[in-house]
């Protein structure tokens, strides 16, 4: 397998590249990103590109990669604005798929990381969404709109290219020591927000499971849409109890307005799609991916517990992840200099 990983400058991309390059059956890993890799990588070749992936067609042709792992989809609207999100998600995916779909393209597999945000959440929605579920609430936020557009590109692509295995994974909220998600940031605060009178059931995926699911999709032939989420849903109040945090209530009416000053003071940024989740909650049916053979290491409560343990350690000894800084010359030296002995057999 020759793999191309997008979004190498994010934790996701670097982590997937790490997993892939550790496997013998993966010949080449090319990491594409606007930023440098955030984790140390052994043999992944890093290519800097703008988020529109204009060089992609040349790159695919030159490297003859057969698998694309598209992790560079932004689902956290606290990190960038609607315009930039549209640019990265929609335009990026469009160019990516256009490059992958040209005549004579060597691409045989495309794995896309999406989010269960595409289902929306509302009062008339089921407690547990299947992959076929339709939205009942209009998509109002930029992130949801852009993800829906991305998904429609992906399904068009899969229709136009029947010889390509297209796997779309929809992730629930991810918790872990390394990944910065809005829920993780909320749970890191001294007091955790909730909406007065609501205690929604939520589902979480552990970051290890999230990465494992993407790698699983790369290594197996599983075309179609799959939900990814740990088993079970638990109330937000219980999440806070496990993490050991007190809760502070936001008013149930005009919640967005009440959250605005917090955002302006940079205390807490809860975008409206997450406020909706804190009101109605959401669970997804993860059985399709399990039937395909994937095994989760963490259930929802297990993921929360592991996150809580990480937080406790962090509060005692501080952030213990060693800072890694990509240095182009060093990386190039180790990969390409004749002075480096590569075969240690």
């Amino acid at each position: 397998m020759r793999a191309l990983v997008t979004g190498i400058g994010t934790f996701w991309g670097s982590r997937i590249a790490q997993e892939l390059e550790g496997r013998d059956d993966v010949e080449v890993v090319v990491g594409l990103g606007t930023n440098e890799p955030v984790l140390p990588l052994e043999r992944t070749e890093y290519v800097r590109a703008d988020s529109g992936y204009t060089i992609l067609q040349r790159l695919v042709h030159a490297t003859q990669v057969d698998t694309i792992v598209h992790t560079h989809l932004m689902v956290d609207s606290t990190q960038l604005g609607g315009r930039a999100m549209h640019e990265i998600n929609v335009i990026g995916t469009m160019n990516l798929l256009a490059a992958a779909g040209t005549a004579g393209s060597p691409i045989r597999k495309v794995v896309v990381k999406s989010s269960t945000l595409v289902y929306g959440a509302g009062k008339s929605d089921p407690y547990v969404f299947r992959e076929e579920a339709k939205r009942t609430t209009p998509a109002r936020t930029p992130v949801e709109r852009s993800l829906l557009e991305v998904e429609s590109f992906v399904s068009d692509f899969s229709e136009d290219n029947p010889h390509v295995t297209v796997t779309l994974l929809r992730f629930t909220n991810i918790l872990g020591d390394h990944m910065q998600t809005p829920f993780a940031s909320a749970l890191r605060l001294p007091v955790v927000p909730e909406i007065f009178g609501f205690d929604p059931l939520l589902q979480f995926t552990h970051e290890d499971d999230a990465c494992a699911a993407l790698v699983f999709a790369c290594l197996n032939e599983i075309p179609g849409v799959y939900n990814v989420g740990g088993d079970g849903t638990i109330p937000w109040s219980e999440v806070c109890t496990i993490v050991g945090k007190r809760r502070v209530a936001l008013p149930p009416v005009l919640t967005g307005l009440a959250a605005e000053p917090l955002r302006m003071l940079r205390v807490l940024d809860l975008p409206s799609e997450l406020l909706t989740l804190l009101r109605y909650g959401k669970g997804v049916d993860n059985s399709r991916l399990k039937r395909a053979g994937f095994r989760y290491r963490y259930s929802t409560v297990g993921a929360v517990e592991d996150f809580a343990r990480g937080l406790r350690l962090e509060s005692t000894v501080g952030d213990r992840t060693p800072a890694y800084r990509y240095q182009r010359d060093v990386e190039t030296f180790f990969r390409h200099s004749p002075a480096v002995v590569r075969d240690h057999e």
Partner: protein
Amino acid sequence: MPEPSDDRAQTARLAEPARAGAPSMPEPGTQLVPVPGEERTDDDHLRRGDVDRWGRSESIREIARTIYDPMYRYWFRAEWEGLEHVPRHGGALLVANHAGAIPADAPAIMHGIETELGRPVYGLAEFLFRDVPVLGTLWSRAGGVTAHPENAYRLLHDDRQLVLVFPEGVKGTGKLYRDRYQLRRFGRGGFVEIAMRSGVPVVPIAVVGAEESMPIVWKSPRLAKLLGVPYVPVTVNMLMFGPLGLLAYFPAKFKFRVLPPVHFGVDPDQERYSRSRVMDEADRIREQIQDALFDMLRKRTSVWSG
């Protein structure tokens, strides 16, 4: 860049993996354990609460039962007949008639079956509750579930629980006192389809007493529309006790008659079921309950003492 103009955008679908090729999950034996159908993972010891995936909490339910018990026992003096028709194991859809401005039948049926049989009952109700702070959460913890076909299917098929549904919906509770015990339309027969799809029987229950516990004498459709609620009733209770009447039920004698379970003899998990068959079955069940109601009313000598 064109923005999606359609607000109710559909989520994307890709080509699905071939059904036959995929190894199917081992089907859980249909009638093995009463509770719960959900997979028990090793992580259960990590849980700090007992809220299940439907939002029901057995400990809160327990408190609710303790509070409600005197009401059930001494106020409504609930009396059951044919309780043996409620299955001790496996899923079943309990279907009853619905009445009273703020219906007292749902908590009474749930309380009765839970205390008599020791099995949890999940009550399906309108989406309305999910929007209300505090009340919505309490309702959910006490066993209320939003009436969505997907929820009902999972509860019945996957978890093999008892599920209570009132097919008349708000048409039943919002009817005037002069229309008492005259069943409204049973929706579009969706409850029959869900039972067929889940492979469970329907257990009809006829309820007498709820109509008289909070009778509606007048309704304001215009006000209801304004407030966005199904109906704004004026009840006899309100005429007598003012706003307190919203909480005060009359002590009508509650009688429940459970009718024999209706099995449909069709395969579960079909793509679709014959519409006419579904409507016929729904009508038959409606008539059974209606007949039972008339029979019970014939035998009833007093609204208050039964």
